[in-house]
């Protein structure tokens, strides 16, 4: 079947089987390998992308179900060579070691800051409770999100 999805603002049309999962459509069909394919059981959160601005697990969503919806992947965060504040936060606060969970963490926390620009530590931990990191122990990830929230607020004030 033809699946036509808007990914990072660009309409992409491909002929795929109905059983194609969104994560494989993004990675293998379209070639955007920033989204990671992890546990395959909707537990780990490495595959999180935004669907109409809400984080979803792309390993448990059919590509066919996304027709007519806007998908955003980690590749959309950097704009004109400028990293998103959330990416800068992960860089500044060492919010990653191996990096496998990072794309999902970035998209999950980007969505958090979009709906709640000044989250508490508890709110950050709740937001990422569906994302597993086996390296950092989450402390640095929480710091990274706080860093991003503070800097984003400061940047908005300057602008």
């Amino acid at each position: 079947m033809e699946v036509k999805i808007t990914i990072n603002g660009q309409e992409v049309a491909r002929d795929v089987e109905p059983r194609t999962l969104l994560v494989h459509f993004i990675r293998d069909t379209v070639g955007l390998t920033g989204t990671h394919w992890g546990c395959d059981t909707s537990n780990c959160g490495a595959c999180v992308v935004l669907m109409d601005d809400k984080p979803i697990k792309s390993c448990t969503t059919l590509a066919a179900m996304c027709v007519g919806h806007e998908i955003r992947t980690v590749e959309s965060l950097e704009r004109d060579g400028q990293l998103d504040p959330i990416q800068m936060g992960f860089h500044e606060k060492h919010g990653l070691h191996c990096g496998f969970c990072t794309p999902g963490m970035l998209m999950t926390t980007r969505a958090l800051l979009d709906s709640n620009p000044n989250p508490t530590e508890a709110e950050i931990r709740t937001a990422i409770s569906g994302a597993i990191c086996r390296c950092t122990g989450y402390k640095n990830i929480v710091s990274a999100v706080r860093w991003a929230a503070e800097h984003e607020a400061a940047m908005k004030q300057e602008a």
Partner: protein
Amino acid sequence: MQTPAPFDYERASTVEGAIASLAEHGPEARLIAGGHSLLPMMKLRLANPEYLIDINDLGELSYIEERITEIRIGALTRHHELLESELLARRAPVFRDAEEVIADPVVRNRGTIGGSLCQADAAEDLSAVCAALKAQVVIRGPSGERTTGMDGFYLGPFMTAVGADEMLTEIRIPLRAGAGSAHEKVERRAGDFAIAAVSAAVWVEGGTIADAGIALAALGPSTIIVSRAVEALKGKPPSEELFAQAGEIAEEDCMPVPDGRGPVDYKRHLASVLTVRALRRATARALQQEA
């Protein structure tokens, strides 16, 4: 790599169309909404539907509305909407209690109440919530609509009263005076299945419990409604002794099996403790004395 077996796919644009398609394609056709139970089962070949009817476009099934005597919830209402609903938090707070601990926030963006109930997984929280609240569910088929109570909804593990050519369209929560409700759950980590969970509702009139509902999740082959405990509560003033008595009955009447989440005696102990806690909190809410 886990991928479902091949199937044909259709996107429904009306409820009637979805039901007609179910009737046309027979028992190997399935509705898919959030897909967070069905797709994992398809990956594991525990479910092998040959035809999927995607109902995510049926916006007419997504609502939470207050009527005079009940709250009506459309089957396609997603977990995050139930969690965020101020109406439910005010009139049936057991929903918010449960939604805070159902899966994780990302999964809650997709999963729906209709899908949760129809999955009929014994460990699923909303089944216990709706059973405790004595909800009615509306089932639509080719020949029209019927309603059934939660006590007649579950036919066994993963089996419901919804026929192969039918669709759950609405959940109706009765609104009565003096209501309080709460959900208590113990889980190993965020997103895991419950080790045990209990939903309780009470309706307090003139200082006595006029009616109650208690339902257990993950403590038997299906959601368990503890009718014997409800009978023990009725007509009596709420007290710690009474809650303890209901807890003992829940401990006796549950049917847990040992697994990686714990042995039977531990789960029976949780049935008792969580029943007491849920009743305590439900009653405090009914009396507007919640700490």
